[in-house]
């Protein structure tokens, strides 16, 4: 227990994160309101991804944890997207 895992995140930081998250929520609602055609999905998904990165790194402390946890999370995400990608090789080219 000698390593720096006792890092305590100040309350202020959490509030900033929350504000950012809520702002992005409204932005993603906004972006789907203006008609961007098929890009609106993309826009909404980009915001969702940014939001989840915030949640993962601060709320879930990944930023302060050992790097191998981050690697694992990245690996799981990668695996999942690869699976979706390969599934689409079927549906997209059918």
């Amino acid at each position, binding site marked *: 227990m000698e390593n720096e895992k006792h890092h305590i995140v100040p309350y202020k930081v959490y509030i900033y994160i929350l504000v950012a998250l809520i702002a992005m*929520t409204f932005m993603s609602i906004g972006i789907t309101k203006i008609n961007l055609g098929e890009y609106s999905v993309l826009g909404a998904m980009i915001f969702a991804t940014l939001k989840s990165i915030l*949640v993962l790194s*601060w709320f879930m402390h990944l930023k302060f944890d050992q790097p191998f946890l981050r690697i694992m999370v990245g690996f799981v995400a990668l695996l999942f997207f690869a699976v979706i990608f390969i599934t689409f090789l079927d549906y997209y080219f059918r």
Partner: protein
Amino acid sequence: MEHVAQHSDPHYDQEASKLGMWLFIFTELLLFGGLFIVYAIYRFLNPEAFQMAGHELNITIGAINTIILLVSSMTIAMSTSALQKKNKGLTVLLLEITIMLALIFLINKYFEWGVKFDHGIWPGSEHLLNDMGHGEVLFFGLYFVMTGLHALHIVIGMIIIIVALNKVQKGTVHADRPSLLENAGLYWHLVDLIWIFLFPLFYLIH
């Protein structure tokens, strides 16, 4: 490489329980992941129907619920900080707020589903099967399954938080043994994380 020292107290290893929780979170992510694959494929196959059906959902309620979950995520995150700062009163308060928010989320969901039911839309309902196209059937099928499963996770999350709250009050979870609270927090953030994706996918497709 990594720390291999075994613990003097063999029954408490904070890193181990954190790692365990993360691994469990991975399985949850893939559980929903399976549904996201189904969603992605059917959305790809029925783009118009999904957009049409998406209009039936109420963005305002969705947005409110999103914000509720985000706030509750923050309060539970703060509660770990409070615990570490040995501020027991604040920890308990923050956890109570989190539970309240979760409850409000569920109540909202209840009314939201209720409205759908009033419109004759539920899995396998006559209205859905007879008057709507295949794409709509799939959209609502997935909507109920995914939000339903998510709601189930909210309930489980609440139970875990309540247990954690109890232990904080009793003093068995404290600054030196925060694992249970931390894990409850991680789980709660997972629930939030999933909602972050559910919200745009169901409510925001126009």
